[in-house]
């Protein structure tokens, strides 16, 4: 296939977001670094290393033709399945969940890998099913079974936020792949009760949901993270209190450098800084959708929209939580939050998206017509 120039805006955007994230990780974590490790740069240094590795991966993956993955989807699936089983069987429990594989001092979340693999798989299988779209059994049932198995393994960990993110992303790919609306609707209406059931299985998740509706009613327990998040966002005002000058990060707001990093951004940089970040995210979505639309084939389109959806869903989840619109779940903010696996896989995914942008459909109309023939 003819390779063209990669999407310049996506590269620029990725660099800006990584830079933005590094600055804010330092700002939000130096205090915790001093308190816990007597080193203000503790978190920043680690994040810097991951960003470096991530950027290398970004360029490597942007040079791997995306069709290559299609051939190996089965192997990827197998590897991720083994990883999940390994985690369930051998990993130590941390905070009541088994999500991490430890290799030396390096920890790795298989769920990040699974996210991309399942996008690849769903995109690939939906391309195959284009001829039998009207047949529910043939089109939707097989990928659904695979997705459900993986989601089930994630629920056992438990890692509900990843489950919901993966499931939703795959559903979007199936939707964009042209599945019949009636079938999708049936599927969704069957899925919602299951979701609600899982959500309310544990008292702690009910409490989180209740705390969402009125965080101030229970300020000591479940509401307090959300309240403290609002206490950070609110005082930010239009211009913020200034970079590095957040008070809420002074051990008030837990996870200030990870899941709640956006609250501190809003506090330090104000509406201007935080709003800009949302706009940057929006630009990523716009570029991503544009690349997907212009992809040379359906696999590229579905893979692209899957990557964009994964990104957008995580952004929405994270921002929803910190602005008290969604119950507290631990979803990191893509590119920004502290966390190696998350940042690296975000860059890998963006690398794949960038690669898709190198195989754009020919723009002029005659070519399209020719293609249709």
């Amino acid at each position: 296939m003819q390779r063209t120039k990669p999407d310049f805006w996506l590269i620029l955007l990725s660099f800006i977001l990584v830079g933005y994230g590094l600055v804010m990780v330092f700002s939000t974590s130096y205090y915790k670094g001093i308190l816990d490790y007597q080193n203000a740069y503790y978190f920043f240094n680690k994040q810097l290393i991951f960003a470096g590795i991530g950027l290398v991966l970004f360029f490597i993956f942007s040079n791997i033709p995306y069709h290559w993955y299609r051939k190996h989807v089965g192997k990827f699936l197998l590897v991720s399945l083994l990883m999940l089983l390994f985690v369930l069987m051998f990993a130590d429990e941390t905070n009541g969940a088994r999500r991490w594989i430890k290799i030396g001092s390096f920890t790795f979340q298989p769920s990040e890998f699974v996210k991309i693999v399942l996008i690849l798989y769903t995109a690939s299988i939906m391309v195959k099913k284009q001829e039998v779209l009207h047949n529910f059994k043939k089109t939707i049932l097989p990928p659904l079974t695979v997705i459900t198995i993986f989601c089930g393994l994630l629920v056992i960990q438990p890692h509900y936020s990843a489950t919901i993110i993966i499931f939703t992303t795959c559903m979007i790919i199936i939707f964009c792949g042209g599945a019949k609306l009636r079938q999708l609707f049936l599927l969704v209406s069957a899925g919602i009760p299951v979701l609600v059931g899982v959500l309310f299985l544990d008292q702690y998740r009910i409490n989180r949901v209740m705390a969402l509706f009125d965080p101030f009613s229970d300020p000591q327990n479940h509401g307090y993270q959300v309240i403290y998040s609002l206490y950070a966002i609110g005082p930010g005002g239009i211009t913020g209190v200034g970079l590095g000058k957040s008070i809420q990060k002074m051990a008030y707001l837990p996870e200030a450098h990870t899941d709640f990093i956006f609250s501190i951004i809003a506090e330090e940089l104000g509406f201007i800084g935080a709003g800009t970040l949302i706009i940057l995210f929006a630009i990523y979505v716009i570029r991503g959708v544009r690349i997907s639309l212009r992809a040379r084939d359906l696999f590229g389109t579905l893979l692209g929209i899957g990557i964009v959806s994964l990104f957008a869903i995580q952004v929405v989840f994270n921002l929803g939580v910190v602005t008290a619109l969604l119950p507290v779940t631990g979803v990191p903010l893509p590119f920004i939050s502290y966390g190696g696996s998350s940042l690296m896989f975000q860059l890998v995914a963006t690398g794949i998206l960038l690669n898709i942008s190198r195989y754009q459909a020919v723009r002029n109309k005659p070519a399209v017509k020719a293609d249709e023939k």
Partner: protein
Amino acid sequence: MKSLLVLHKKRLFIIFAIALFVLIALLGRLSFVQLIQGSWLTGKAENLWGRDIPFASKRGRILDRNGELIAYNISSPSVMVVPAQIKDKEGTAYKLAKILGVPGEKILPFVKKKQLIVRITPYGRKISEAKAEEIQGLQLPGVVVAEDSKRYYPYQSLASHILGFTGIDNQGLAGLELEYNKQLQGTSGYISFSANARGEKLPGGVDHFTPPKDGLDLRLTIDLNIQKIIERELDQTMAQYQPENVIAIAMDPKTGEILGMSSRPTYRPDQYKTTDPLIYNRNLPIWKTYEPGSTFKIITLAAALQEKKVNLNQGFFDPGFIAVGGARLRCWKSGGHGSQTFLEVVENSCNPGFVTLGQRLGKEKLLSYINQFGFGQKTGIDLNGEAKGILFKPSRMGPVELATTAFGQGVAVTPIQQVVAVAAAINGGKLMVPHLAKQWVNSESGKVVSTVTPTVKREVITPNISAAVRSALESVVARGSGRKAFVDGYRVGGKTGTAQKVGPNGTYLKNNHIVSFIGFAPADDPKVVVYLAVDNPKGIQFGGVVAAPIVGNIIGDSMRYMKVPKRTNQIPPEENILYDPIVPTPNFIGQDIDKIKNSLYTTPIETVGKGKVVVSQIPRPGERVKKGTLIRMYLGDK
């Protein structure tokens, strides 16, 4: 294939539109939180960041007029926890709970509280030294035993209604502790600074120190010794007569300074939690409202003298009743006092005589004087919970009401009103504002910060009329119905009073009286006025027998304590104290026992049998016996 391609693009656009919409919604949410809720959240956040380390001020002490301490602070330890420093919250809570003697679940919330310093109220406040040492011995991280202070009342229930009490945070809750809480409490100081969640000071935060201002010492007008005399007499009265309650007030008539005031039932300020709130909430001397009875005649007398409506040497004939507006108002003595001077009318407390005085004054004048003497309005004493009393409305006051008001029925007043009014009648005519606070003293330097000066509300009668009232009342004690209050050499003046109590339905209660006496001494230069009321004394007694001797005791002991020189020019008592005169026995046969209790004889009586009417008596009527001989009455129902 074309349709499929279009389908894919369409669906991509749908997803794209939804994603953009959600992102815009989040932007909107962000602007709402930051720009609209911003200042509200900032305020709340600043509260969270701000830290005040309090420096409690010392509560001022309360002293009597001579500087004796009657309420002060003693140190008593309190437990505080710093939750951030406690790793093992459950363990700490249960260990504390064990020593404090409460279930662990009660302590756990304090330990878990997200707050810098948490006081364990009330379980860990003001605990014993032993418990404090035990807790300190555990060496639990994050548990601090801090110095705290507790209000201490060394004389227990003495003057408890005046002093009141304080709550767990040493805040005044009743009595003077409440009335003067602000001055006593002072203002607590604090260091305030912005802190991180671990309570450490933030580099950029504003901090400032506000030093505490200790409360001022309050010096009272109360004299500890006179108060003790009163408390002693009240206890004796309770033991002897088992009344529902007893009230006593001693006041300096010239200044309105309360020298002593108490009532029964009483309570201990340090045990208010286990006391019926009705007991400490009702400060009877200023709250209880009832018919004064004959003590009110002093007001009628003073008014009549001031208006020159009577000459005490003038003659008056009492047939035993007086007809007013078609009604026959009886004198307390059946058969009447016969021919007497108006001075004897006062001495004998003769009702028809006082009705005559009331009629001579007329409705307007009598009511005006009652108002002038402060009835129907608060006296303004510096205590909470004072009542106003109830007077007839002028429009509803007919001749009968005028007549009964003249001898103290049909009006309802408080004890403090009577004391202040009588003080005005005998101190030269000035209606004073009664008060308890005398001085505010800086507890450190001992310097007087401010002094309460006696306040004259108004002048009601002239000094020479006041002198005439004094001498008439001295004569009541020396020769008349107040005989039992006589203290040799101190020229006691006074007046008995007995009133039937009014029940909840507005009618008079049977067999239920308030007997009272108001006395003062010495009559030439009054130093003290003492009022005492006994509510429903058990056993059947003449009113004058119960209250007058108690007031005599209080006045006698107070005069000796105050080192008031004995007078030689007193009105000689009617009879020689050493030899009781021989008098004819009054006739009680056929009289209602209820009425007998209302009368003002000074003879002791004893009753035999049950019933309402006297069927027989020993000694027989008219038999000449020594004055003060016990009369035994046989009761029946006829």
